């Protein structure tokens, strides 16, 4: 089943590489100050910042992971978009951007420093910097493994080449280069995936045909079976979904993660900054059709050689390899193999390699030529994610760690130089992490778990900080720590069904609760973290001295003038656009109810 890309496919990929690098070279001459390099000189128009906002997050984890989730859980995966990401994006644009952009903070940790104090910034900056380089490494590892499995490319060569290209264009053109390339990558991903969805849907007879083939009502309805955790394949009930996924995790990510917020901070005006996430919300709303549907289709179609009589020769030639590849698979999703090439079994049944659902769809439906475009889209998604991490890392490192704690008084040119240097060593650490991941898979699992604990309570801190002027620095800092501990404790006392103690939880000894699925456990861990952080922050804030109000102007809702919106046309107003998104969102939830 392994495809053999032809010259035409490689030509397309090489052409893409050439353009990505070219953009970096052209932008080099615009990088004169550190503000140009880290913030694009705050000169990016809203539509560009918006598409970059979307694309920076659109890493491989999303394209591959959402396809996998679609294959596993069906259309319920759309909750990650329709009640998760999109409402959170509207919220950050309408309500939070006035403080991020208005305070002139250069990063999210710097906002924490302005609003609270040095220790809160330090905690956030350091955990974010470490997390960013390692998650970049994790996604490099995933890409290398995928290209190796799918195309037989060399693992080391694949990640080295892509890392070097990302390094070159972010080193040369800084954030502007990353943002411009993210816009290019956005269109590439869209144009690469539309034909995939078209061919897949055409093959199964449209959405109605897909429903018939899936033959599982719970996989083609997003809300109908959310009443009880046991009724739906995700093992989550509506409350855990709304509170855990939508409120805590999605708002926590989209409203506080510097990787995305940086794109809006680079916008050329306050209204552009506020429009950035709202503009991103429009395409984000339709992304489920591009990334989830291929996964769902992968589970119900067959390899063409097997069902298409007109390709007789290839049936004969390919039968042996084909059947061995697919024993125990589902649709065109192959089973997972261990190091020795044997299928991984759980309870006597083979485990499916869901991460291959979308890649196998590319191989199944794209002839040579289009395959090059599809692979390009896949590689573009890896690169946009990697570049997003790289630019967020070099900014937080240079401004919030280096300038704040190591060298406070250097010249702007020195910080510009440090930005470039940290681009190199950030990517170098990520590369090392990718190779470590290849050897010791569990280390990164543990690291990701720790990051999840640190991230979970963040939204409580930002919400209180922005909307309750009484919140103090001590409250914020200890609240964050307390929320992290609450997450780790909850996770340590619970387990998902069928899992053993360890990375999956339960490490504190007694198991107080068994969740029906890992997802349910994660959502509830986030809920506990949020409640822990919220409560502790409020209590400690009330016990400590408040900051004088004049110091909080522009940082807190009640002490900041409402953004001026007169003189804007209706389609330029962030709130009007957000309202349109909301109406469409309700419609989508109802259609797929």
């Amino acid at each position, binding site marked *: 089943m392994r495809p053999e890309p032809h010259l035409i496919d490689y030509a397309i990929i090489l*052409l893409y590489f050439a353009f990505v690098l070219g953009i970096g070279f052209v932008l080099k001459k*615009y990088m004169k100050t550190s503000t140009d390099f880290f913030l694009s000189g705050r000169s990016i128009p809203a539509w560009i910042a918006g598409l970059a906002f979307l694309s920076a997050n659109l890493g491989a984890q999303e394209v591959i992971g959402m396809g996998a989730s679609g294959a596993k859980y069906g259309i319920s995966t759309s909750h990650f978009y329709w009640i998760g990401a999109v409402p959170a994006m509207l919220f950050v644009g309408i309500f939070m951007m006035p403080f991020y952009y208005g305070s002139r903070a250069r990063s999210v940790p710097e906002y924490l420093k302005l609003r609270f104090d040095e220790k809160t910034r330090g905690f956030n900056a350091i955990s974010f910097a470490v997390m960013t380089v390692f998650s970049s490494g994790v996604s490099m590892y995933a890409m290398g493994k995928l290209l190796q499995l799918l195309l037989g490319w060399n693992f080391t060569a694949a990640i080295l080449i892509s890392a070097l290209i990302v390094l070159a264009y972010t080193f040369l053109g800084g954030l502007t280069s990353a943002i411009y390339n993210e*816009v*290019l990558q956005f269109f590439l991903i869209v144009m690469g995936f539309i*034909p995939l969805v078209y061919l897949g849907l055409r093959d199964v007879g449209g959405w109605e045909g897909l429903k018939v083939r899936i033959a599982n009502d719970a996989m083609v309805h997003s809300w109908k079976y959310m009443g009880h955790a046991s009724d739906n394949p995700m093992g989550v009930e509506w409350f855990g979904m709304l509170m855990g996924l939508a409120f805590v995790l999605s708002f926590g990510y989209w409203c506080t993660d510097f990787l995305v917020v940086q794109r809006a901070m680079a916008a050329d005006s306050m209204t552009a900054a506020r429009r950035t996430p709202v503009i991103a919300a429009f395409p984000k709303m339709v992304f489920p059709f591009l990334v989830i549907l291929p996964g769902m289709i992968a589970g119900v179609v067959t390899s*063409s050689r097997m069902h298409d009589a007109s390709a007789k020769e290839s049936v004969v030639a390919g039968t042996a390899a084909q059947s061995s590849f697919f024993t125990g698979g589902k649709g065109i999703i192959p089973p997972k193999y261990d190091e020795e090439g044997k299928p991984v079994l759980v309870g006597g049944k083979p485990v499916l390699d869901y991460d291959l659902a979308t890649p196998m769809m590319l191989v199944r*439906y794209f*002839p*040579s*030529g289009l395959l090059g475009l599809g692979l390009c889209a896949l590689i573009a998604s890896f690169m946009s994610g990697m570049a997003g991490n790289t630019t967020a890392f070099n900014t937080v490192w240079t401004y919030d760690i280096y300038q704040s704690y190591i060298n406070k008084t250097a010249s702007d040119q020195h910080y510009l130089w440090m930005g470039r240097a940290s681009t190199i060593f950030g990517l170098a650490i990520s590369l090392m992490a990718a190779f470590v991941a290849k050897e010791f898979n569990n280390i990164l699992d543990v690291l990701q778990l720790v990051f999840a604990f640190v991230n979970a309570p963040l939204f409580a801190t930002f919400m209180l900080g922005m909307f309750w002027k009484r919140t103090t620095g001590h409250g914020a800092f200890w609240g964050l720590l307390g929320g992290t501990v609450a997450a780790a404790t909850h996770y340590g006392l619970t387990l998902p069904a069928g899992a053993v103690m360890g990375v999956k939880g339960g490490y504190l000894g007694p198991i107080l609760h068994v969740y029906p699925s890992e997802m349910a456990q994660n959502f509830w861990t986030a809920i506990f973290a949020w409640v822990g952080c919220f409560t502790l922050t409020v209590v400690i804030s009330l016990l400590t001295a408040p900051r004088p109000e004049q110091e909080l102007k522009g940082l807190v809702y009640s002490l900041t003038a409402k953004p001026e919106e007169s003189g804007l046309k209706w389609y330029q107003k962030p709130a009007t656009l957000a309202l349109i998104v909301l109406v469409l969102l309700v419609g989508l939830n109802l259609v797929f109810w």
Partner: protein
Amino acid sequence: MGFDIRMPIGMLFTLFGILLIGYGAATRGSAIYVEHSLGLNMNLWWGVVLVAFGLVMLALTRLRRKQ
């Protein structure tokens, strides 16, 4: 900034489209389309869409430059 991102995007997609149209025309009636894309010569058709998209992007770049 004097650099409009729509220009390289327009150029890249136009080139992609031309490559796909050329390859699609050269492989008309090939078994690869039966095997993969339901008998449709998707290289040809999608190539046309990509060229159209690329040209729109280039036109927008020119339009802005004139203003």
